[in-house]
C-alpha cells in the first residue's frame, strides 16, 4: 500500500516540479512584464506544491532521503512525471496550451484528492487547490483571448493544441498502483476525471473559436519512467549544481 502511495506521490510531485521548472525558464522573457510575473508566480506555486508532495514521498520511502534529494539526485528514468509537462516551452501559445491542459486536469484531480482517506494528502490537496483554481482560470482566460484574437494568434493556439494533444491520453491512465489506491479511497479514479476534463476543455476551446484536436493516438510512459527526449536536458540544467557540488547548501 505504501509503495503504491509512494509511486503516486512521486508522479504528482514530479509533474508539478517539472512544470514549475519549465515555467521558470520564462523568467525575464515573458511577452509583457505582467505576464512574466504571473508565470513566475505559477511556477513558484507549483514548486511549493512539489515540496509538500515529495516531502511526504521521502517520509514514506523511509530511506533517509529528503524532498531536495528526490528532486536533484534522480535521473530521468526515475522521474514519473506526465509527458505533457516536460514538453518544451515553444512559443507563448505552446506554453499556454500546455498549461491549460495540465491546469484543468490538476484542478479536477486535486478536487478528488481533497476527499482522500489519507488526511495528509487531503490537506496538501486542499491547500494546492486554492492556487490551482486561479491557475486554471488564468490559463483558460488567455486561451480564449488568443484563440479568439488575431489570425496569427488563433493559428498558433490551434497548432499548439494539435501538437500537444497526443500527451493528454496519459492523464487518465490507470495501473495497479492507481487501482489499489482508488479501492482504498486514497485517490480519485483517474479514468473518472476524463469526462469533466473533456467537458471543460471543449467549452473553453469552443469559446476560443478553436476546434478540439481529432487525433486519438496517444503517447505515454512518463508515469513509468519512460520519457521524451526533452526531460534529460531539463534535468541536466536543473540538477547541475547538486551534481557538480554534491551536498552544497545555500
Amino acid at each position: 500500500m505504501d509503495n503504491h502511495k509512494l509511486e503516486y506521490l512521486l508522479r504528482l510531485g514530479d509533474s508539478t516540479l517539472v512544470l514549475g521548472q519549465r515555467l521558470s525558464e520564462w523568467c525575464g522573457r515573458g511577452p509583457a512584464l505582467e505576464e512574466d510575473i504571473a508565470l513566475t508566480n505559477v511556477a513558484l506555486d507549483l514548486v511549493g506544491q512539489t515540496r509538500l508532495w515529495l516531502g511526504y514521498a521521502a517520509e514514506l520511502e523511509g530511506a533517509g532521503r529528503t524532498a531536495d534529494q528526490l528532486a536533484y539526485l534522480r535521473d530521468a528514468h526515475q522521474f514519473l512525471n506526465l509527458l505533457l509537462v516536460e514538453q518544451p516551452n515553444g512559443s507563448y501559445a505552446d506554453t499556454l496550451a500546455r498549461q491549460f491542459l495540465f491546469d484543468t486536469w490538476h484542478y479536477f484531480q486535486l478536487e478528488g484528492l481533497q476527499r482522500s482517506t489519507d488526511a495528509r494528502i487531503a490537506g496538501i490537496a486542499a491547500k494546492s487547490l486554492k492556487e490551482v483554481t486561479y491557475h486554471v482560470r488564468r490559463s483558460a482566460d488567455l486561451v480564449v483571448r488568443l484563440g479568439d484574437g488575431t489570425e496569427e494568434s488563433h493559428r498558433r493556439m490551434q497548432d499548439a493544441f494539435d501538437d500537444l494533444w497526443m500527451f493528454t491520453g496519459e492523464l487518465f491512465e490507470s495501473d495497479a498502483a492507481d487501482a489499489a489506491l482508488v479501492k482504498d479511497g486514497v485517490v480519485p479514479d483517474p479514468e473518472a476525471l476524463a469526462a469533466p476534463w473533456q467537458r471543460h476543455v471543449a467549452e473553453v476551446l469552443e469559446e476560443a473559436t478553436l476546434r478540439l484536436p481529432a487525433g486519438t493516438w496517444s503517447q505515454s510512459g512518463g508515469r513509468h519512467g519512460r520519457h521524451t527526449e526533452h526531460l534529460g536536458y531539463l534535468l541536466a540544467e536543473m540538477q547541475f549544481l547538486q551534481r557538480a557540488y554534491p551536498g552544497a547548501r545555500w
Partner: protein
Amino acid sequence: MKEWPLWEIFIRSQHGLAHKHVGSLHAPDGEMAINNARDVYTRRNEGVSVWVVKASDVVASSPGDKGPLFEPANSKVYRHPTFFPMPEAVKHI
C-alpha cells in the same frame, strides 16, 4: 490584445479599511488588469479587494494648484479639530 493601456491599481488588504493606491500596470482590459494586479501586487494574499481604473479616467489636481487648493486651511486654525477636550480612553485615536 493589441492595445495595453495603463491601469491604476487600488487594493484593500485583509484588515484594511479603505482601498489604497499601490501602483499601476498595463493590461488589455479590466478583467485582465485584475488578474495581473493579483499577480503583481497581492502576492496571493487572500481576502483582498481590488479596484482597477484606467489611468486615462483619473483626473488629478495639477501641481501648480497646490497653493490655492490646500494651503488656506493651514492658516485657519478654527478648521483644525484641536480644541476639543478628549476623554482619556480615546486619547490615541
